[in-house]
């Protein structure tokens, strides 16, 4: 048995070219792990075992022929269920897409497959990205790798857990308001929300189109860099992708910013202590810590939810039982529409569609959607200014520890939304943010964000190595 615990991409690459083990043995080891643990943690919604072993065989044949193999070749990865892959199913964590097989691969996935990475399977998530726990996943909750009574986070809970549980080497997730960073924080792994437009969204089932980003999740920061470099780039199929014309020479961090408004009574005291301890360490290493005020950040949650729900209410109109997914047994079209969406959508998804439709409806659009976009401009202007004075911003990822699966007191839905307070600001402003493990409290992990300006992924990744 190969020891696959926390294997790095470079480890795998070296082992393969040095013939320490075969790719087939490697992939088989991961599937053995999945066999043992998936039922408990409910990480995968579909697996691609046959296809993966087929690909592993091809890698082995290449190695046998002494052909060169790429750095990512043979490395196993998982993909969030809401990102299109030809292999496996693409169900977006929702009943409405049960059994759906995509006719194409998402651009990001295509890039990884072309580099020889091997798709293991699709991971469970809150349906359509609607949630921060996977409690809203129609295929079951993903359990926290560190404790079965707690959630893995969301919406990319399965992705983060798959990496933490060594079910694959790295994962591709999707982050709209914190959906990579928060589960990464809950699962003690690294998760990168890239700058908006840096990675192609083509093939990712849209939640909030102006907020969605696709990014890597891994056990170490070197792998984050390797994967990000493999998947980034302008895609002619996605006109919102941006050119990376940033000057890469200056990735030095001197000044760290802390947003004053983030540190309040809502933040768990233990997390706050861990956070400030880490800040002290940075200070001792010579970094300058600056406390900055960002008054408009109080509008971030309101702006985020109005925009995300408005966009999702429109993006989910195509799920109507006509062309794909499930269809109810009705003889009248109107009934078919409503019953299909009734069976197919969860309560949370229905609620977000209602809120979004309301926000865009005649007479209300100016008051809600447009106002939210105005707030977004205000927040972006403030963050642009802040980055003139600091190199990176540090913040906790989540104000609380991982949520309980069966809490004694049910969480108020508004409270769940408010827990996104630290993650929505980078989403609204299109900048990048990397979650790194911060520490444990009562054996549950918590993370911290390194937030960088647009297209400064190199800077925050370098800083994470400190």
């Amino acid at each position, binding site marked *: 048995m190969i020891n696959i615990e926390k294997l790095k991409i470079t480890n795998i690459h070296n082992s393969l070219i040095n013939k320490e083990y075969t790719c087939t043995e490697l992939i088989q080891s991961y599937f053995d792990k999945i066999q043992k643990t998936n039922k408990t943690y409910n990480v995968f919604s579909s697996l691609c075992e046959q296809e993966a072993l087929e690909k592993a065989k091809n890698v082995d044949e290449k190695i046998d022929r002494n052909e060169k193999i790429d750095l990512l070749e043979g490395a196993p990865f998982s993909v969030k269920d809401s990102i299109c892959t030809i292999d496996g199913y693409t169900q977006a964590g929702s009943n409405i897409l049960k059994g759906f097989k995509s006719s194409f691969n998402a651009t990001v996935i295509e890039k990884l497959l072309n580099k020889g990475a091997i798709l293991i399977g699709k991971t469970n998530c809150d349906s359509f990205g609607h949630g921060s726990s996977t409690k809203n996943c129609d295929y079951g909750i993903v359990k926290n790798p560190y404790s079965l009574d707690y959630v893995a986070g969301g919406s990319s809970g399965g992705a983060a857990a798959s990496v933490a549980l060594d079910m694959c080497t790295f994962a591709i997730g999707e982050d709209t308001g914190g959906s990579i960073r928060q589960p990464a924080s809950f699962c003690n792994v690294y998760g990168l929300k890239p700058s908006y437009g840096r990675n192609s969204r083509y093939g990712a089932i849209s939640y909030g189109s102006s907020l969605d980003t696709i990014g890597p999740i891994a056990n170490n920061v070197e792998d984050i860099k390797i994967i990000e470099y493999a998947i980034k780039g302008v895609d002619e199929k996605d006109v919102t992708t941006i050119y990376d014309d940033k000057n890469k020479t200056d990735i030095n961090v001197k000044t760290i910013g802390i947003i004053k408004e983030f540190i309040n009574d809502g933040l768990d005291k233990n997390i706050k202590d861990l956070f400030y301890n880490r800040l002290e360490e940075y200070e001792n290493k010579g970094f300058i810590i600056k406390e900055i005020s960002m008054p408009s950040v109080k509008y971030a949650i309101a702006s985020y939810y109005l925009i995300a729900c408005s966009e999702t209410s429109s993006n989910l*109109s195509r799920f109507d039982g006509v062309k794909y997914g499930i269809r109810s047994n009705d003889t009248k079209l109107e009934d078919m529409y409503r019953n299909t969406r009734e069976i197919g959508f969860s309560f949370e998804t229905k609620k977000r569609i209602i809120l979004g439709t309301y926000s865009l*409806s005649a007479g209300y*659009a100016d008051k809600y959607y447009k106002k939210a976009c105005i707030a977004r401009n205000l927040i972006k202007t403030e963050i642009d200014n802040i980055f003139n004075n600091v190199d990176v911003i540090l913040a906790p990822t989540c104000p609380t520890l991982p949520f309980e699966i069966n809490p004694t007191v049910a969480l108020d839905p508004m409270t769940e939304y408010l827990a996104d307070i630290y993650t929505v600001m980078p989403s609204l402003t299109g900048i990048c943010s990397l979650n790194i493990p911060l520490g444990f409290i009562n054996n549950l992990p918590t993370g911290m964000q390194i937030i960088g300006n647009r297209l400064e992924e190199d800077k925050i990744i370098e800083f994470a190595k400190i």
Partner: protein
Amino acid sequence: MNKYTPIIGLETHVQLDTKSKLFCSCNNESFDAAPNTNICPICSGQPGTLPVINKTAILYTVKAGIAMHCDINKYSKWDRKSYFYPDLPKGYQISQYDKPLCIGGYIDILLDNKEEKRIRLNRIHLEEDAGKSIHDRSIEYTYLDYNRCGTPLIEIVSEPDLCSASEADKYGKEIRRIVRYLGISRADMEKGHMRFDINVNVKIETDNNETKYTPIVEVKNLNSFKALIKAIEFEINRQIEDFEKTGITKSEKNKTTRLWNDNKGITSQMRTKEEAADYRYFPDPDLVPIILDDDYINNVKKDISELPIDKLKKYLSLGLENNISNYIVDNKNLADYLDSCLLKIGDNKEMQKEFLNWFGRDFFQLLNQVSSNDKIEDSSVIKITEDDFIELITLIVNKKITRNLAKEFLIDMWDNDKKLIELKQQIPQESLDIDQIINNVLENNQNMIDQYKNGNMKVFNVLIGLVMKESKGLINPKDITNKLKEILEK
């Protein structure tokens, strides 16, 4: 007696003739294709797909805007128009709401009384077409074909300046002419390249000087000029009758939508109650705005020369008949041919007059013989080159050839693919001695001279015929007549 004035506004949807669709690279030509064969994940609304705009569709829209005298918006954007219908795969149509590519504008039409009327436009915007729903193949099911999803459409919205079905017909036909002229659409009604929605109501001026309006009715999806005319006429009558019965006038809340039934020749109210549709327009976050600069717009302007109505006026002023002028304008290849010939002829009035006579009469006679299998729009249908035609006219004007012989040549070139250079060899090179030929003929027909001298006029014509035969038709009959008379009088 009440005075009734119809008020009609037209929304014309024209399919653009780009190679690929508006937001994806599927083939835009689907007329004969099997169902769901010109589709891809984008136009069939699969999860995870994103639209990318076709740059030629933008060009064509700007061309239409300039030709129709619109202001081109330098900044324009894309909006989602949401509604549920099975042939609309995404559950929303990507269109343009508050910042379309073109605003304002006008189209001039020629009324029957030769007066010009200006129909103002409100805007022209670019949007995608939906698929086809076929309802009559089965009792239980509607059959869906997504081949047409994503076809680029321009929507030309007029102000309610039209007053009759006839005006609407002319206006619609002028749009068809313009888009064909610009080469941006084939506007073939039978292939569904053009569709009309109309908004109709009637202004009523009563005896006691009150002005009232009937409620506005929208009739959607009229796909032939016949249907357009019939639907408008039906609606006007129906509304007047309704008003006389009920007296109900237009209000903000009573605009309705009706459907035209071609078989029955009536409009009927849509069965489901139409609440004012809430399309929840908002900017499409998957697309980015279009910014056009002066250079772009000027380059497009350069490409557009004369418009159909300008050509029509020109041909009429040159003396071509109304029917013929309209026919030429409707077939751009003919217009191009005519314009090119006229350009080569230049200022020579005599040449121009002779040419236009031949063009409007003899040339058209030949065109009429063209079988229905050959398309008039196809430029290969014209069997005489411009240079040959002009040279022929030159020969006539310079009296190097009689009109009769010229006519023979024309037919020979058209029917038998002959070139003028061959046929010219049939013209005798030396100048013909009329005197000699006539004297020859008279010498051989002494008896006829005697008959003429005795007062027999008929014999004169026989002699002319003989002279013509002798000269192989190369002498002008008029010249023969004069000369013969002259000689006989001696």
